[in-house]
């Protein structure tokens, strides 16, 4: 029960935090700090949130109901975000495994490449993808990705978004692997004649799960930033681009809250799973 209480408290605190952040554009009147304006803005946002069903947004000269239309944007962004993260985790794990079983000079090169890619900003990746798509189109007339299309596409965005988190997760996993391999229990398992693959899958995997959790918040946040830039560059109809195109404080706050809830749940579930598996490891 203590667990539930702690999570509930975290949820409420972060919820209020998002609410407070959502009104920050009201904090500045031109360039002056305007606390009174901020409080007014905050109060109005809360009032509007209570009757959130009546919120509207403008598109062209028309005014539309925000709910339930916003859910479509939300689901699109969330599906891309989570699929990319899960894909990144799987791919990074596979790469870690390949690194683990390959000889040490290959390991060295893997690490070097991973280090190099860490310096690639998302904009660079997006530019490369765009150039690549055009190149492929010129060569084969196959359009991998229709940037101008209005319908929502999934495969390419998920693949592109997962590139950077994959490298990030890979670096973390390799770091954990290097630490774990030195530990006495791995040595013990080895001397008992366990196969290296089994040691990797059963023991090292669990510890990887736990230590990626410590980084999970920053990884999700980083991916969220990437998602925003990707939605912007490729004209994807996601929630974050929606926020960008409708820069009113109430839409910003509502969208931020809508994004926050599923991400918080996702991270909490991950935390619980990681803690449980780590406990099992401790018991064994």
């Amino acid at each position, binding site marked *: 029960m203590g667990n539930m209480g702690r999570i509930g408290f975290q949820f409420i605190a972060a919820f209020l935090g998002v609410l407070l952040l959502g009104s920050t554009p009201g904090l*500045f009147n031109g*360039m002056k700090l305007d606390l009174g304006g901020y409080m007014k803005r905050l109060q109005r946002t809360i009032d509007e949130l209570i009757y959130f069903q009546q919120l509207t947004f403008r598109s062209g000269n028309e005014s539309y109901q925000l709910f339930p239309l916003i859910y479509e944007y939300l689901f699109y962004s969330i599906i891309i975000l989570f699929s990319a993260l899960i894909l990144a985790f799987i791919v990074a794990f596979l790469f870690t495994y390949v690194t683990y079983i390959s000889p040490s000079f290959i390991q060295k090169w893997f690490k070097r490449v991973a280090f190099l890619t860490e310096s690639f900003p998302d904009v660079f990746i997006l530019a490369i993808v765009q150039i690549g798509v*055009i190149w492929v189109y010129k060569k084969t007339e196959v359009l991998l990705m229709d940037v101008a299309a209005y319908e929502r596409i999934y495969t390419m965005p998920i693949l592109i978004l997962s590139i950077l988190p994959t490298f990030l997760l890979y670096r973390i996993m390799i770091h954990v692997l290097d630490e774990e391999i030195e530990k006495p229990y791995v040595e013990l398992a080895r001397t008992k004649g366990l196969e290296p693959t089994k040691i990797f899958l059963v023991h090292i995997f669990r510890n990887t799960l736990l230590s990626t959790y410590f980084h999970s918040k920053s990884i999700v*946040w980083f991916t969220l930033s990437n998602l925003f*830039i990707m939605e912007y*560059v490729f004209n994807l109809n996601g929630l974050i681009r929606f926020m*960008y195109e409708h820069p009113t404080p109430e839409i910003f706050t509502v969208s931020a809250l809508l994004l926050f809830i599923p991400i918080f749940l996702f991270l909490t579930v991950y935390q619980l799973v990681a803690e449980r598996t780590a406990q099992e490891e401790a018991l064994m």
Partner: protein
Amino acid sequence: MKYALKNPMFVTGMIIIVLLLGSSITYSIAYDDVVPQTSMLYDQDGNLIDRSPFTPLQVAPFGTDKYGYHLFDQIIIGAKYTIGIAFLVASMRIALSFVAGVVGGTYFRRTLRSTSGFVDAMQYIPISLLCYFILSGVLMENGMEGTFQFSFLERMVFEIVVLTAVAIPTTTTLISNETHAIWGKGFIEGAKTLGGSRVHILIKHILPHLGPRMVIIFLQQLINVLILLLHLGLLKLFFGGTFFNPDPILGDEYRSVSSEWSGLIGSTFRFLPYDTWIPLVPILFFVLVIFSVNLLLEGFKQLIEKQTMPRSRKVIRSDSNKKSYDPNAFYFLERTDRGEERKTASR
């Protein structure tokens, strides 16, 4: 610091950044930031071959933009702004959150723990979007009137303040956690028992341990600011302000007030499909700078590991490094009283 110069990664990163900054400053002193322009190319007979933009093959080394301005010179001029701003913002972030974090981690541990929940909220909003919302009102030129509401200096200060402020909550929490972790260590307990006051322990024990961590956090923040600048540039929010020129026929035009890199990218990103090199060159330079900061970071981490870890676990046993000596080369002194005295003093 002496050891830092021996680490190849650290040195390489340093050299790249110093070269970029140095050439940028030299350029503005020597050429007064005038960008050479080639808008038309003629062959030997004086016939017009081509008009700008030129590819890197036509005009070395990086080609020109739409108006024929050489990209290489623009990059060099912009370097001092981009690197300078990133440096300034990152140092301000670190300086402010260092003070707040150390004080918080030492004296107000409990208060900080209860506010960390609010700080968590930062993790659920893309930071570039938040910055965009706060900054767009001030930095965008009013398209109708063609004027800025604020002066160049005001806009610059405002942007630096905002870029600094958005990261303060997270970095403060980070540093206060680090500080708290050091307070919990065994040797602090020892210092307390020996009667060291809080301030004494803070200065003599906590701060020296915090130092290397601060360098790491600083370098990470440097990368963070660079990426943030890149994002804002892409969103057409350029450092020091954006000229906005609505043009319904050829598409709206945005231009950077300073020739800062993110501005070069943001204003030309839509040319990527056909004039690939124009946005790609500044992006590649961003990659280069982030890469060299990463080199600094990695090199520094290696240095710390070398210092804290025992040098090497293996004990080299071989007779080859035992130096042979000739006993006849020495003679022994008679023991005197002075020698005795020194012995007791050292004891």
